[in-house]
């Protein structure tokens, strides 16, 4: 048996992004999590100009430990519209749900799919729940978390460089400035955490409550999904090159190859990482910057994370879908290069990554 390359792009009707919505909030006392989800999905449907009755399937990304109850999709799924229709929940990053939702339409199983993802950092601490993903005997006692792994990446990177990352502080400031200019950024974090060495406070993300929703379909909505890629590497941190993010590179290469686009064709890149350091490493891992020059590229290339990235407000597993929605909205605003690339990872510490290319017609 042989494995074929993706072939669906030859199909006549591309998958299009009909509607998007993203909402960041901070411990909103007036709304429950299902209400936050309901409001965001409703906004995405309104953006698409369709009703829930026009939707065939709901594809969600959610994490039990962040939602605070087992099989949380029992209560959150219906809020996203999963009532008497097809529903599937991934325990993955939201961008992986975009991939599966796209495949659902490409497979001709459905014509319109709602993709939704959320995380309420004010109620479920993602760092605490993420720490439970490490081996309970050999790793959890070390206090590992996604943030701690980001610090380990930074250590490995700086050791390899034998010096600090050039223009690192300026990149941090640029990231904060971009977030400040983004009207959709979180007003304030739900909590602040100390920066583990060698990370700096300005390099951490803004933890927030967040919901994102996307309506995928076939209607000529102006923005099409033209490339999807996935990458997976070993679960064991010791088997990975922490400075390389191989799964992100594989995902981005696959998505770009499928779309037929190159770096110069892209008008926006939304690269998601736990910290600014991870976002910069992603730049280098996917080949957009030479090794050791990621911060310079981040600083000088306005296409990269114009949303402000993690500084704009983030919570797993909504991360990738937030960034996807940001990229769509950026393309809608009109860009000289009307195409975008979104890359985002899932547990454990970016073991898997998804990349999606979108193009405005």
């Amino acid at each position, binding site marked *: 048996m042989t494995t074929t390359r993706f072939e*669906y792009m030859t199909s006549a009707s591309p998958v299009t992004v009909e509607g998007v919505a993203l909402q960041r909030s901070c411990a909103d006392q007036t709304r429950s999590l299902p209400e936050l989800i309901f409001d965001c999905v409703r906004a995405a449907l309104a953006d698409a100009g369709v009703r829930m009755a026009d939707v065939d399937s709901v594809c969600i990304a959610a994490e039990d430990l962040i939602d605070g*109850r087992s099989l949380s999709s029992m209560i959150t799924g219906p809020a996203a519209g999963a009532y008497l229709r097809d529903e599937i929940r991934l325990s993955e990053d939201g961008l992986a749900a975009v991939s599966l939702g796209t495949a659902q339409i490409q497979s001709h199983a459905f014509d319109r799919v709602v993709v939704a993802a959320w995380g309420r950092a004010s109620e479920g601490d993602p760092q605490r729940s993420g720490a439970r*993903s490490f*081996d309970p005997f050999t790793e959890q006692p070390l206090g590992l978390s996604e943030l701690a792994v980001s610090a380990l990446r930074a250590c490995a990177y700086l050791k390899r460089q034998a010096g600090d990352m050039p223009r690192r502080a300026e990149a941090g400031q640029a990231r904060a400035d971009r977030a400040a200019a983004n009207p959709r950024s979180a007003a304030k974090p739900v909590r602040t955490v100390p920066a583990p060495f060698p990370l700096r406070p300005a390099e951490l993300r803004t933890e927030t409550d967040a919901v994102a929703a996307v309506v995928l379909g076939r209607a000529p909505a102006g923005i099409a999904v033209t490339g999807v890629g996935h990458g997976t590497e070993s679960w064991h941190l010791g088997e990975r090159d922490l400075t390389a993010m191989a799964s992100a590179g594989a995902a981005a290469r696959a998505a770009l190859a499928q779309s037929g686009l190159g770096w110069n064709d892209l008008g926006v890149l939304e690269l998601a990482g736990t910290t600014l350091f991870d976002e910069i490493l992603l730049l280098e891992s996917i080949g957009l910057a030479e090794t050791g020059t990621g911060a310079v590229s981040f600083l000088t290339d306005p296409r990269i994370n114009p949303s402000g990235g993690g500084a704009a407000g983030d919570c797993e597993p909504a991360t990738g879908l937030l960034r996807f929605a940001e990229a769509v909205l950026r393309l809608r605003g009109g860009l000289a290069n009307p195409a975008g690339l979104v890359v985002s990872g899932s547990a454990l510490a970016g073991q898997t990554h998804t990349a999606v290319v979108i193009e405005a017609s």
Partner: protein
Amino acid sequence: MTGAIGVVGVGQTPYRRQNPDKSAAELVYDAVRAALHDADIEMDAVGAVIGGVAPDALAGINDIDRMSIARPGRPYLRVNTGGATGASALQAALTWIRAGRADTVLVVALERMGQATTAQAIFNTIFDPIYEKDFVLTTITMAGIRGSMLMKRHGFGERHWARIASRNFTHAVDNPLVVGARVRTPEQVLASPMLAWPIHQYEACPISEGACAVVVSRDGVVGTRSVAWVQGMAGSSDSYSMGERVNRREGSLIEMVPLKRAAAAAYRQAGITDPGTQVDVFELQAPFSIIEAMAYPALGLCDVAESRAFVDRLLDGEVGLEMNPSGGAQAANPVSATALIRIAESALQVRGVAGARQRGEVRRAVATGQGGATQFSSVCVLGRDRP
């Protein structure tokens, strides 16, 4: 459906309460190796891996699939739809192939609930923390509520539940994967401790661990392999609130509306108009006798109002249908894997390689998946004839 897809490989570990001698990864390895061997392929032929693990709390480790199922170099997704996880994972695999993303996908579902101090304490956390958790709503008590409704509305009695369980236990004796299987008479079932009225211990599923792996491939690469073709598959979800489902136009709480809708869609794809005569074997994800009785009308085997009479005839051997030749979920219920096991067992029946539990020449089998509080349902139709 565009292009036929079939199950070409099945691998399962034995299902037992605990596996203290094996890690999660070792269980997965055993199941995957068996599935690849059954399919006569190497891992290189697998274009993507879909993992199925339900509530993390059961295993005590978040994202246990990452260390045990995800495979470097292969696209990987984890599906989590509760008890329906395994079926949803297979559905995602079908989607992946039909989208042209791979020719062959490996689906692996894993359950490590034997690591939990008490599974029902964890299942208590699937319900509302303010309104429901404190009166000990669990998967057992939620099934008990349905059982009492069936008894009140349709005249079922405790002996019905006991007889269904007894039949499943009897079937499980022929399934070497059910560790510790033994025949239990209806009287023995009724004599077992009461868990939550009207459910006795032996009418409820046991705690089970294990892994199940299934290889699915598109028509063009199947070659001469023994195949169980996917003739139809569909899923549906429902409202969380049980109170909302008691009286409504679409059907009551005990009518399993999402299962009914999933069955209708899957049957339509498969060209089934009379499941009672067009399906040879059913593998039902019914962790309780009560849930199995509810599934019959939802699957189109009888009317709701006549479901008790249908159960009587079925248990008396007057209905020519084979239910749960494997013993079903009452014999072994590794929650995350159970729905995929139903599909795997159906595939073995269709391929004629189910060993002592084979039910003659099976041309078509139906497997169901059930998750949440009868909230997520799926139906998969497998058959010998390529669609």
